[in-house]
């Protein structure tokens, strides 16, 4: 909302206050001023009345002359160079002194005055023409210096030398505050409303500007509208019409036009401008109908019928529903819509240049109804904004009569008549009194206040404060504040605001709260992954259909998406990461290692939990996790690797190494007794079927968190993570030609599996390592898995085996090896307290070999 300070000054005494001070006070009083702009000519600095004492030729130029001009009685005159032809000794003229800002008469740009040499003679200012002061004048006189007075004048001027020329000419600029009252303060969406706040904040008196209300002339208007009605007072508590005849439509009075222009409105015609003027002045929207275009005898308020239409003032035909409130022109059996209540009038009854009779409507519509209508129609206006925030029923008629008075004053012909108002509903507002306990002020604000102080703060805003008992005040809320002040806390806020937020001492809360169950998984994962060289991405969880995910039945869809790219909630982080990968490769990056931690989303979770009832929640409803969540949201951690790593080109082993390193750093035991790697089934489409490993734990999730199963993301509740190569076809569809590698982890499960570290004793005995090379025939080797061998070795080697490393897999080329494959493991044995003997280790190795030979047909070299 824009507010003119000049206009505001009509309602509250702002004498002596700078625009910045007013803006600051309003801002700190809940009315944030976002900007101050200047309306009118932006003149700055010293521009004063000066008397030309002498005029001399310029020594170096013909067309300009040198004046000696004094700007104070008895003062030493200043040397000022002037090019105008109309100057004479004894003239009193505007003098802009160095530092002043005036208007460049050639192009209207700002002109800053400096003391400078003009053709070798120093000039200490500038004598100004009307144009240079921003005064528009068409005649030739405008070319010369503006003559304020002459010393020869019989009448002494009303000003002295040195006085501010802006004051003398009354060309002070107006300052416009761009202020945003919050959505609960509909009462302040007007000059008068904001003035009330300014008066309270500055402790200045409110002014009653010099205006009158129109008095009706009963019975003088006989034709046209003779009545009004409201279908339902819940939609519209109060409705008023004032008939006016003998109107002459024309341009607005300059004073009104200037006010509207100052707040950015374009003047239209006198009557329309007055309705706008009064709305901005008092906050009450008004509408004027051309009485001659109305067909019926009564204007009333009713809901639209579904499918009904109206053409609004902006020329658009609007299709209505029964949630829209209408103003209708009724003639008995039927009626015609003439406006959308509180939002916009109808085209057919619009005021035109030839209108002579009006019906002026002022009403109070229910905020929720106007808001709903405005949203449904996608149509809002200055009027709807105010109705949505609530107008004061008690002030409706007052505003209408103010407008009628102004119409009478500025738009009348000789036989102007103002009829008696037609009223429906009631403008009586119930009295609201709220109890305010001083101890509540103390408790919330830590302020010690007595009733007198509270009254001093609240009464300028129209609250009536009286003692209602020890420590309790009874506060009568004025009608215009009943939308936002209903409870004690609302008054506490008013007290806080008016007393000043700055007046409250800062302190620190006492007491402590136990920080239970704090989880550090994420921060640990960040350090491990960034340490390994992966950078973190943050991706949109709103994705296009292509990237949404795997389980169509569980897709969460946005019904009112911003675009097709933001239509679904993702079920995996991977498609987004692949997008980020492609983006970076396209920009010339060779190595892109990215990860993300984020949520994935599944619908129909409620259905699943109903099928498997958990414990009963406090409402007696079925609950799984204690509070009902409309969908299943799971935390994931995923990564994508492309390009070379520190050890050369990225391979499946690289990404698996990253995953293993991450999980190990988070304290997960990846020994093969605890986990299982498999090739998996029902893989997401972005995975290479023969280069993917699915990591499962050897037990299901703990009870109460068996949601993975419910959704079946990986087709198996035991799955913790997967790692694999990008499916070449999936990649090609996304413009990815390079090999890329992917991992994704169920972060919720991971968190649940983590255990705090426990110390185990360090061995002081020597560790013994032995290499074991097993030979397999080629056909046997083809299906052999490390996991099978390692399990077998670990089982047979027993608890003294501390470490098992796969050293090499060697397949001699050609005839030499006879197609055999040699696999070498390194076994490290150690006992925590005993030194193991060669014999013990040999015996263990013998067991291992026998078992490998028996179960896997391994042979060993001598």
């Amino acid at each position, binding site marked *: 909302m824009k507010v003119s300070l000049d206009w505001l000054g009509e309602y509250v005494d702002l004498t002596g206050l700078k625009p910045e001070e007013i803006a600051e006070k309003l801002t700190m009083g809940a009315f944030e001023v976002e900007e101050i702009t200047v309306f009118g000519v932006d003149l700055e600095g010293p521009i004063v009345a000066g008397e030309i004492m002498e005029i001399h030729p310029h020594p170096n130029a013909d067309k300009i002359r040198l004046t000696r001009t004094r700007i104070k009685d008895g003062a030493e005159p200043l040397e000022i160079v002037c090019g105008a032809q109309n100057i004479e000794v004894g003239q009193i003229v505007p003098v802009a002194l160095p530092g002043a800002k005036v208007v460049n008469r050639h192009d209207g740009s700002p002109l800053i005055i400096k003391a400078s040499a003009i053709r070798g003679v120093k000039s200490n200012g500038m004598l100004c023409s009307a144009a240079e002061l921003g005064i528009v004048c068409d005649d030739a006189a405008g070319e010369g210096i503006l003559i304020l007075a002459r010393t020869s004048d019989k009448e002494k001027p009303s000003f002295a030398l040195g006085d501010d020329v802006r004051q003398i000419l009354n060309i002070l600029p107006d300052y416009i505050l761009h202020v945003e009252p919050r959505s609960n303060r509909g009462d302040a969406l007007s000059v008068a409303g904001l003035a009330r706040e300014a008066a309270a904040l500055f402790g200045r008196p409110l002014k009653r500007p010099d205006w009158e209300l129109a008095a009706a002339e009963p019975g003088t208007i006989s034709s046209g509208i003779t009545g009004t009605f409201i279908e339902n007072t819940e939609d519209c508590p109060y409705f008023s019409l004032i008939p006016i005849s003998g109107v002459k439509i024309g341009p607005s009075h300059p004073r009104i036009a200037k006010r509207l222009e100052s707040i950015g409105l374009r003047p239209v015609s006198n009557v329309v401008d007055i309705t706008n003027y009064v709305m901005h002045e008092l906050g009450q929207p008004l509408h004027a109908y051309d009485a001659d275009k109305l067909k019926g005898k009564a204007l009333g308020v009713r809901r639209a019928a579904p499918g009904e239409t109206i053409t609004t003032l902006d020329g658009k035909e609007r299709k209505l529903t029964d949630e829209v409130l209408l103003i209708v022109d009724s003639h008995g059996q039927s009626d015609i819509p003439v406006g959308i209540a509180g939002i916009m009038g109808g085209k057919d009854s619009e005021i035109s240049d030839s209108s002579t009779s009006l019906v002026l409507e002022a009403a109070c519509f229910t905020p929720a109804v106007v808001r709903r209508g405005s949203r449904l129609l996608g149509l809002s206006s200055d009027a709807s904004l105010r109705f949505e925030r609530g107008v004061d029923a008690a002030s409706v008629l007052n505003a209408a009569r103010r407008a009628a008075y102004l119409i009478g004053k500025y738009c009348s012909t000789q036989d102007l008549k103002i009829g008696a108002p037609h009223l429906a509903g009631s403008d009586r507002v119930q009295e609201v009194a709220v109890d305010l306990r001083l101890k509540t002020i103390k*408790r919330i604000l830590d302020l010690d206040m007595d009733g007198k102080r509270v009254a001093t703060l609240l009464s300028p805003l129209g609250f009536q404060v009286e003692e209602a008992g020890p420590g309790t005040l009874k506060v009568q809320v004025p009608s215009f504040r009943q939308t936002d002040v209903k409870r004690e806390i609302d008054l506490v806020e008013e007290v806080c605001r008016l007393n000043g937020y700055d007046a409250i001492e800062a302190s620190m809360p006492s007491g402590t*709260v136990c920080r239970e169950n704090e989880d550090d998984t994420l921060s640990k994962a960040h350090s491990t992954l960034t340490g390994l060289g992966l950078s973190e991405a943050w991706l949109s969880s709103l994705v296009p259909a292509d990237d949404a995910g795997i389980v169509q039945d569980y897709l969460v869809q946005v019904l009112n998406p911003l675009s097709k790219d933001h239509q679904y909630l993702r079920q995996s982080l991977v498609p987004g990461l692949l997008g980020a990968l492609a983006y970076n490769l396209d920009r010339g990056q060779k190595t892109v290692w990215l990860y993300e931690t984020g949520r994935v989303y599944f619908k129909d979770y409620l259905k699943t939990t109903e099928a498997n009832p958990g414990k009963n929640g406090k409402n007696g409803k079925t609950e799984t996790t204690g509070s009902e969540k409309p969908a299943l949201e799971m935390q994931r951690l995923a990564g994508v690797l492309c390009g070379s790593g520190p050890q050369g080109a990225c391979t499946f082993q690289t990404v698996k190494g990253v995953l293993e390193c991450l999980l190990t750093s988070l304290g997960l035991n990846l020994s093969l007794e605890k986990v299982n790697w498999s090739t998996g089934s029902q893989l997401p489409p972005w995975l290479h079927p023969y280069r993917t490993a699915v990591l499962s734990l050897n037990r299901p999730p703990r009870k109460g968190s068996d949601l993975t199963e419910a959704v079946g993301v990986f087709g198996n509740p035991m799955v913790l993570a997967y790692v694999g190569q990008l499916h070449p076809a999936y990649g090609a569809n996304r413009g990815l030609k390079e090999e890329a590698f992917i991992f994704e982890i169920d972060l919720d499960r991971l968190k649940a599996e983590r255990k705090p570290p426990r110390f185990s004793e360090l061995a002081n005995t020597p560790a013994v390592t032995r290499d074991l090379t097993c030979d397999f025939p080629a056909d046997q080797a083809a299906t052999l898995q490390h996991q099978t061998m390692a399990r077998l070795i670990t089982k047979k080697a027993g608890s003294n085996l501390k470490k098992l490393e796969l050293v090499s897999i060697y397949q001699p080329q050609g005839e030499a090896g006879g197609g055999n494959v040699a696999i070498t493991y390194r076994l490290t044995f150690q006992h925590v307290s005993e030194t193991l003997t060669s014999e013990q280790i040999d015996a263990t190795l013998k067991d291992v070999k026998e078992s490998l030979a028996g179960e896997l047909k391994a042979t060993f070299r001598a």
Partner: protein
Amino acid sequence: MQDLEKKIVEMESSALKAIEEASSLDHLEQLRLSVLGQKGELTGILRGLSSLDKDVRPRIGQLANQVKVKIEQAHLDRKDRLFQSHIEARLSQERIDVTAPGQTMPVGHMHPLSQIRQEILSIFSSMGFVTADGPEIETDYYNFDALNTPASHPARDEQDTFYTNIGANVLLRSQTSTVQIRVMEMSKPPLRIIAPGRVYRNEEVNARKYPLFHQVEGLLVDKDVTFGQLKGTLTAFIQALFKKQVKTRFRPDFFPFTEPSAELDSECPFCNGKGCKTCGGRGWLELLGCGMVDPNVLSGVGIDPEEWSGFAFGMGLERLAMLKYGVNDIRHFYTNDLRFLEQF
């Protein structure tokens, strides 16, 4: 016996000479072995002492021992010097160009939003706030009604909300304040929580807006919590975040779920309040919204507002990160260009 004495003296001089002339550690070691080793000359003499006459034995023995000590000493001296020059030779051979660049190590970068989130959480964690969490897919009850924003409330229109196919009342939360309600339903006061999370609003994408962004919500509920404590806590937070004694001001504002409500501005730390591009010339930066928890919110979750009071606050991660790091376009945060990520 003269011969033996003579032999010892000759051996001494020749050994000392040879030691002095030894050119390498290996050569020196050979010399040592030939004189002092198991089969060395002098060792042989010392070993043969027992077969000498008693009257010459002490003299010869003394002489041989003196010579042995001398030779040993000379050997050690020479060894030290040879070692020294050997090391020096090796070191100078190992000369490299130390100005050549180091090996490139893989370095990953945490996303700037993660970094600022971690910073915010750690500041509040030091003040005893516990991290909390809530769903992003919510019902309108948690997003609005429980936050004192009934269907008729104008504040509902200010946030353009996304609705889902799960149900007419199921939406993507537009604010993390939902977590306040979820936490207060589950736990009894005293409470101190800090809840980071993703929120969604149906707004056209531009340099300042993205349909999803991130907030950090805070809530403290206890006995006798005052507006002054809200001011103290958040002022301490801002100074910890900017690591500077910045001036703050609490400006009245309106949120349906707090009363009194405030916007916290800090004096622009980049221009010290003089006005610059970052603060749009105002000298103040709008940082976060806050206020005393509305009694309706407390009683809605079964907490007696006469017994307990609290404050809540919420801030936008993107906004703070843009201010702190000078990022000029919100879309950079979601594009994940490595050239961007690697700056943090």
